[in-house]
């Protein structure tokens, strides 16, 4: 038996407020499960940004197109890791594929994930890069030649018809991809929203709130990456692209904010059995992470900044700075949202009579350091991806140097 675990639970005992069922002291879904919806949210959001270009023909955002797809891929590759790490028996996880329980939302994870990775993201990226890969492989020597040749699956056809087919295929995949991205993250919301035992989670709005917060976080992180990578590779930031993307971010934040406000008002207005304990939870244990971090810092402040940018005609340099601050604030806000949903939902007793507390570990699989590593890993994967598959056509060599 893990002595540390028991020791930790003994330490938590004095911090219980009111009555909780005795089995409820241990918080079962910790930091790792906070990381999971945060990461998948970025995947879905980044993909939606990419689909703006292909499906809705928003030409201004073109410079972010490839970057957003690669970002989605980098984060998607990391998405299963927090889930696997938190399982009591990670080696049994294959059972979810072999003998899935069809009534379980969680059992569908593997299938939704596999569909999104194999059918949507990888195929779309392959079609985008197919021609480039062939051209690069012809020019290059050594290992890069072979990497690109293999990645192109040894296709050699660069005729006009082939390119036309690529574009047609891209359009179809993106159209399939949008509902798939919705499915990927809406499904994560459903995992929480369908738990009737937990009034903090149980809401029909949950998948939709998750979806819009996903779009917000995904678009914000692509803007963030774009603003960092461009100067690094010695290119200038395309202000038209930035303004347009930020504009979409602004609308997504407004929708997200409205949905969360609706959820809030609905709860207060209905004032069900759980309202007392939930108010206590928000005003005590979640005050910092919900009121301060999620709502004020992560939502209202960025919204205010973006409204200012819309109203006043700021210089490009100032706009850049403000956008940069905004996207960072939004990341903090969305991470807090995930925290408040996952951890917050376990901090009150299902007897509605008391609150427990969550003490984060520093080391170990459930610890802060491991979760930080999981959050850094997608950026490393993205760097590798950008090295192999440069996102900005002509500056391929520049990226290689960077």
């Amino acid at each position: 038996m893990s002595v540390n675990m028991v020791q930790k639970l003994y330490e938590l005992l004095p911090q219980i407020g009111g009555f909780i069922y005795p089995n409820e002291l241990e918080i079962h879904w910790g930091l790792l499960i906070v990381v999971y919806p945060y990461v998948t949210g970025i995947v879905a959001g980044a993909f939606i940004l990419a689909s703006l270009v292909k499906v809705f023909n928003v030409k201004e955002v073109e410079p972010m197109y490839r970057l957003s797809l690669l970002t989605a891929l980098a984060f998607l590759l990391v998405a299963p890791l927090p889930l696997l790490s938190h399982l009591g028996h990670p080696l049994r996880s294959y059972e979810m594929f072999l003998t899935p329980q069809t009534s379980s939302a969680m059992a569908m994870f593997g299938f939704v994930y596999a569909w999104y990775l194999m059918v949507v993201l990888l195929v779309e990226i392959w079609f985008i890069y197919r021609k480039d890969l062939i051209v690069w492989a012809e020019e290059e020597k050594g290992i890069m030649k072979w990497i690109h040749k293999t990645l192109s699956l040894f296709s050699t056809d660069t005729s006009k018809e082939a390119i036309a087919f690529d574009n047609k295929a891209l359009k179809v995949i993106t159209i399939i991809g949008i509902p798939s991205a919705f499915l990927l993250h809406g499904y994560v919301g459903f995992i929480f929203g369908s738990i009737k035992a937990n009034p903090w989670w149980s809401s029909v709005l949950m998948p939709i709130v998750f979806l819009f917060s996903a779009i917000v976080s995904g678009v914000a992180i692509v803007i963030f990456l774009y603003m960092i990578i461009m100067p690094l590779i010695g290119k200038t930031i395309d202000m038209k692209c930035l303004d347009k993307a930020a504009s979409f971010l602004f609308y997504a934040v407004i929708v997200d904010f409205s949905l969360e406000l609706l959820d809030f008002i609905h709860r207060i207005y209905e004032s069900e059995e759980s309202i007392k304990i939930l108010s206590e939870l928000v005003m005590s244990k979640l005050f910092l992470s919900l009121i301060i971090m999620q709502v004020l810092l992560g939502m209202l402040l960025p919204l205010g900044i973006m409204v200012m940018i819309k109203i006043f005609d700021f210089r490009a340099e100032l706009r850049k700075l403000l956008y940069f601050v905004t996207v960072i604030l939004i990341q903090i806000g969305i991470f807090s949202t995930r925290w408040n949903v996952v951890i917050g939902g376990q901090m009150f007793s299902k007897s509605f009579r008391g609150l427990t507390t969550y003490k984060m570990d520093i080391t170990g699989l459930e610890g802060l350091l491991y979760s930080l590593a999981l959050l850094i890993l997608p950026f490393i994967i993205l760097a590798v991806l950008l090295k192999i598959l440069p996102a900005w056509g002509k500056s391929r060599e520049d990226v290689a140097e960077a």
Partner: protein
Amino acid sequence: MNRRQFLKDLMTYIVSGGTIGAAPFRIPAWAATKENGKKRLFGFGVQVDRCIGCVRCVHACKNENNVPKEPFYFRTWVERYIIQQDGNVIVKAIGILPDQETETITEKNVLRSFNVPKLCNQCAHPPCVQVCPVGATFQTDDGVVLVNGKTCLGCRYCIQACPYGARYLHPETHTADKCTFCYHRVTRGLLPACVEVCPTQARLFGDLNSHASPLTRFKRMNKIHVLKPGLNTEPKVYYASLDGEVR
């Protein structure tokens, strides 16, 4: 009828009668447990007024089922409710921590007080079974919800889905664990450990489909309630004299 015909008929009568008469002895054991052609369906009764809060049931359960002795893991526990004059409700899981009984409440201030044993409700519509991604948590034919420790992933979705806090993650096996109605005992005709040791018969166990079961009498003689009926889980743990404050 001549004599030959009579003897012939007599022989037929004896042979066929004997065959029919012997038939009940040849019926397989599983069918013999059925009454009125109905399947066996295990249920549990709690007479709240009879519980004296001795928590022998809690200790018996922990010993019988290898539940960790630490005060964070329970298949069954007992809650003490003290409702004060001003309507304030004090609830505690009793007999768990040695220093828990130190707080004193003056008798004058107490409106009513009672103990409520809690355990897995073995719901007819168990949310834990619904959410288990691999079917490791399942319902037996006799209505008991069990966990297969060999296939449980330890994802803890079932713990989140249980409205009654009846599940915990076993710290040694890293799999979900909960009350099984002592399935290993009841399938051999024994009573669950907690029922066996209860000195006041506050806990009752039996077949809900059997007229001879003590549970059937219990359900006939009492006003019955279940926990959190609004969630439509349809518990098979029935409470008599349950107070509205109990959740």
